[in-house]
């Protein structure tokens, strides 16, 4: 083992030599990763097509996710279902002086049942009162990372694949307080899981050594939270919306198996661990402008991820991790812009959007430098089927770029997502 560490250290120094400047940007402490942070996943074909700029203009059961107050616009019982398809790609290249030599690429595709919701408007003589229930996949852990490195006397390759999600099991209610003001609340039980897989293999030739890691971590998430929403129509053209997601304290139960194979000797470390992680509150606001057949909306969402917090009553060591965790993350202000044009004579709606969705990392650590923040564009359409059903299809492409200045890996991530949803109103 000592021999291997010595060899690895030499290799590491070789790799690090050209990147001293980059490393100087970050702290030498340990980056703490929580994959549930900043993992929001859009639901509904219309929302995806508008880059999720729908806090004000959402008009179907997905309001349970985006703004429960908007449920008041539903006048008929509605069943909603949605499927998502996402293709993730990671391309990792080694930096100077090995660029062009060490390149790795991997794709990961996932098709998921995204949503099922039921909205029930209560008969009213005046105003609106709507109840809704649903299951929505609002956080996605799906991701992949791969690397390949060839330096003198050694080569290494790694593959990471992560799958899973957190779903919201929710009930919501919305009521009109005045002809133009509505409020709503969604009560949520979060439940989900993450499957993490990491395989790394290193070969060293002087002297000959091999090392392989095979890691599996299965995490179960559960938590309770609420979402408050309001919606106000200033006049016939302008409307505003505001939502607040309460902090959520997740209980995370993990089972892990770490397998280390070194020069043919296998060592297995397995166990279970449980801890609590609190997500901070999140606020969103939006404004929409609409004419007879045109809608444009601009939304913002703010979350201060540096307020992520472990419950160190679980484990005194988490107190120290809390400090690293909070230095690892930063606040994030997302900006979404979406528009749609309605062609009523063809029962058709066309839409598109753009989203600036910053990664929540603080850039304080050299291992996780943001080279290009996460942006996405989208488009989609809806088709009204015989006055009882609405087909929504949205497509979004997102990309971002990270640099690991320690191992000097430039990582490009892209995501192509298609969301298909169908609403049926009785």
């Amino acid at each position, binding site marked *: 083992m000592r021999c291997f560490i010595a060899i690895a250290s030499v290799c590491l120094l070789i790799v690090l030599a050209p990147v001293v400047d980059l490393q100087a940007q970050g702290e030498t402490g340990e980056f703490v990763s929580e994959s549930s942070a900043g993992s929001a996943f859009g639901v509904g074909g219309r929302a995806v097509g508008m880059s999720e700029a729908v806090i004000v203009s959402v*008009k179907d059961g997905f309001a349970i996710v985006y703004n429960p107050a908007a449920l008041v*616009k539903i*006048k*008929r*019982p509605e069943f909603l279902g949605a499927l998502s398809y996402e293709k993730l790609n990671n391309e990792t290249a080694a930096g100077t002086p090995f660029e062009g030599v060490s390149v790795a690429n991997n794709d990961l595709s996932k098709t998921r049942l995204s949503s099922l919701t039921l909205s029930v*408007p*209560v*008969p*009213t*003589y*005046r*105003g*609106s*009162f709507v109840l809704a229930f649903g299951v929505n996949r609002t956080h996605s852990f799906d991701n992949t990372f791969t690397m390949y490195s060839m330096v003198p006397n050694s080569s290494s390759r790694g593959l990471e694949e992560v799958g899973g999600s957190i779903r919201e099991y929710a009930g919501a209610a919305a*009521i*009109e*307080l*005045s*002809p*133009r*003001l509505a*409020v709503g609340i969604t009560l949520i039980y979060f439940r989900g899981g993450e499957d993490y897989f990491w395989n790394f293999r290193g070969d060293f030739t002087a002297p000959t050594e091999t090392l392989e890691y095979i890691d599996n971590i299965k995490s179960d998430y559960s938590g309770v939270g*609420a979402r*408050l929403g*309001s919606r106000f*129509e200033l006049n*016939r*053209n302008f409307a505003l919306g505001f939502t*607040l997601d*309460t*902090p959520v304290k997740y209980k995370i139960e993990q089972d892990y198996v770490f397998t280390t194979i070194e020069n043919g000797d296998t060592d297995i470390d397995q166990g279970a661990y449980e801890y609590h992680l609190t997500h*901070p*509150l999140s606020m969103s606001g939006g404004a929409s402008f*609409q*004419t*007879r*057949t045109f809608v444009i909306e601009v939304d913002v969402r703010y979350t201060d991820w540096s307020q992520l917090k472990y419950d160190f009553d679980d484990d005194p060591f988490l107190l120290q991790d809390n400090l690293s965790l909070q230095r690892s993350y930063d606040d994030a202000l997302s900006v979404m812009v979406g528009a749609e044009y*309605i062609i*009523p*004579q063809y*029962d058709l709606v066309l839409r598109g959007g753009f989203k600036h969705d910053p990664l929540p990392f603080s850039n304080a650590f050299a291992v996780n430098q943001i080279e290009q923040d996460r942006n996405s564009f989208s488009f989609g359409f809806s088709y*009204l089927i*015989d*006055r*009882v059903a*609405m087909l929504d299809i949205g497509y979004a492409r997102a990309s971002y770029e990270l640099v690991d200045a320690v191992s000097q890996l430039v990582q490009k991530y892209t995501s192509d997502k298609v969301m298909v949803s169908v609403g049926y*109103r*009785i």
Partner: protein
Amino acid sequence: MQARNIIIAIAVGVAASIVSLGCYTIIKHPDMQSRQSYNDSEGYTHTAQDRDCMRCHQDYSEYPYGYYYSDYYPDYYWTYPSWGRYYAYPWWWDYYWYKDDNGTVVTGERPDRRRQGITPPYTRGVEPTAPLPPPSFPNSGQIGGSGGGTTTGGSAGSGGGTNTEEKQEEQKPPKRRGGTQKGDD
């Protein structure tokens, strides 16, 4: 702690809004029967219907049928009814729709009338060209008296007159016609 305070503040704000604005949304329409009820000489209680809807609905022109028709309900909802039906037409209004004998969808009043024909004066108001089917209740002759006259012909006006006379003679409130009428014998 700060987050909790924000949530509490918002909850209080929403509650204050509901209290201060009043409950705009009405699930159950207020009882419109006047409290000035009275008992007649036969012991029946009568109440007056308050038909002055505009007393509470001054803003009817802006919010017809209790709904604010902003630009969210643009004109094409009616030009192309599929849109209006999907987004704007409350499902409980379907109750006001029905189909006629030809299968044509028509709109009209809420079809809530039942047991038609057994309300006084128990005639159809026009002269029948053929004998009417017998009434579904057993003692029509006794109650209607002149109801027999109606079925045997004569002008509608005379039939109506006969009924009126019968009512004047008996001076009794109308009896229920459904089910067993033990008291009629």
